[in-house]
């Protein structure tokens, strides 16, 4: 590349392939080992890095989902989970006359402490990835070029259409469109904003297709990759650790299922 890109933090310096390995290791470890300490450690480190990487604005939306899920899962499953034996299960506490059972909490934790660590860590990994670098990585891995293009272009178009939607929403507001108030008013605001954004983007498709064709998108030549991704020593180290975690997790699960070792690390039942 002629232009050096911004790589101030460690996460920004890591290659997408390294981050993909870390993601795989985390998914396998959190989902298959099911350990309280591991879940909380992953959550803690991820949130710390989210603040360090200054991704807190985007993370706010994830936090809302996490909170809703917490109250829904623990609140509902605590009282009425499918495997509660109300006669024999220990009651943890009562609120407003509703009993909350230990097994209900365990049932909720089985899902919540698997979903939340992955939400935090994968959000961090993917939002700190340069999408064009990810595309180059995927092409290097041998994935079909048009498939990779389609995948990466989705991120680009999402960003552009989002910006356009904000502009049109502001323009419609300036023309008197009510976007606040009762539910009906807010429902009515949906179409005058959505329709112009979408219609104008579809009309451009034909021109874009022709322009891409003239730039050789359908050329039968073997495609080359412009971006050169050179792994650093840290990339190699993290990749090795991730592979070891993947292999170790799979070995633990297989051996414990076969009864050769006890599932000593699993405590989220």
């Amino acid at each position: 590349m002629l232009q050096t890109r911004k790589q101030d933090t460690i996460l920004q310096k890591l290659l997408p392939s390294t981050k993909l390995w870390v993601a795989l290791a985390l998914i396998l470890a959190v989902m298959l080992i099911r350990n309280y300490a591991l879940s909380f450690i992953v959550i803690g480190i991820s949130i710390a890095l989210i603040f360090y990487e200054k991704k807190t604005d985007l993370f706010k939306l994830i936090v809302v989902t996490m909170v809703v899920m917490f109250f829904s899962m623990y609140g509902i499953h605590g009282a009425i989970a499918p495997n509660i034996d109300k006669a024999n299960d220990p009651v943890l506490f009562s609120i407003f006359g509703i009993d909350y059972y230990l097994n209900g909490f365990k049932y909720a934790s089985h899902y919540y402490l698997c979903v939340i660590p992955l939400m935090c860590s994968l959000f961090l990994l993917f939002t700190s990835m340069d999408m064009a670098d990810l595309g180059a990585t995927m092409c290097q891995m041998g994935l079909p070029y048009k498939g990779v293009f389609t995948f990466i272009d989705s991120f680009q178009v999402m960003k552009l259409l989002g910006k356009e939607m904000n502009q049109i929403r502001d323009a419609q507001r300036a023309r008197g469109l009510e976007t606040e108030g009762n539910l009906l008013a807010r429902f009515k605001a949906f179409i005058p904003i959505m329709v112009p954004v979408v219609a104008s983007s579809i009309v451009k498709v034909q021109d874009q297709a022709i322009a891409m064709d003239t730039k050789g998108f359908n050329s039968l030549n073997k495609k080359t990759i412009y971006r050169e991704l050179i792994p650093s020593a840290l990339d190699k180290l993290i990749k090795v650790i991730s592979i070891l975690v993947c292999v170790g997790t799979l070995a633990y699960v297989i051996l414990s299922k076969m009864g050769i070792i006890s599932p000593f690390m699993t405590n989220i039942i």
Partner: protein
Amino acid sequence: MSKPIIELKNFSYRYTHDSPIVLKNITFTINEGDFVGIIGCNKAGKSTLCKSIVGILPFVAGGEWDGEVIVDGKSLNETKGEGVTDVIGIVFQDAESQFTQSTVEDEIAFAMCNFGYDRELMRERVRFAATECDIYDLLGRSPYDLSGGQQQRLAVACILALQPRVVILDESTSQLDPLGRDNIFKLVSKLHEMGKTVIMVDHNIEKIADSADKVLVLHDGEVVMFDEKHKVFSNKQLLNEHFVRLPQVADAAIDLSKSFKGKGDIPITLEEAEKYFGALKRGA
């Protein structure tokens, strides 16, 4: 005498079987190194003509046609439009709809990646194209964050990186402010000086008169006139009949020539007008 690079022979085209014929029996030849301005009123078929020269119509986007388009000695009827992009690069009106990448640098390299260029060669061409189009400082920026003029320069750079022998610009300045438009015309003149053949569709008659060597006038899908620019712009009656105006200085000179006989050809640019009217003033 330079050799022909683009030839149309009785070329006709329509988008679908039920639609009217948009290009009717078009015949002309463009030689290598020419700078041809294509002018005409709206719906004359200018954009359709540009796309037909590159083989987009009919071989990529479909349609019905008759006659022949020959690019660099090869008939598109035989090649089905394959290989035309080795010779011709085309820039469309809406620059933003031509972009797909996240940075200017990647955008310039996009076509080269598709054609399988070597990485070192790509770097060299990106450097060259970005420098020539004066966007080297913008390489790390997103194409969507650029101004209209910068986007058009980027669109030209993307084509220039492939080193085509012919560059077609289809109303590339229509959405730009006057400064942006002037910059594009300067860039296009630079490309012409590099030896490229330029075909430019534009509504700015003055700029076309300034930059082009030859002018092709299109009306209702037919070639009204294709000749050296002075000959075209001195034919006021023919142009006006086909809803095309002259450069303002030519218009003024023709109107004044009823009372005053100037020396030399009817001026079509400001520099020529200075000499022409200067001679009139001195009573020469």
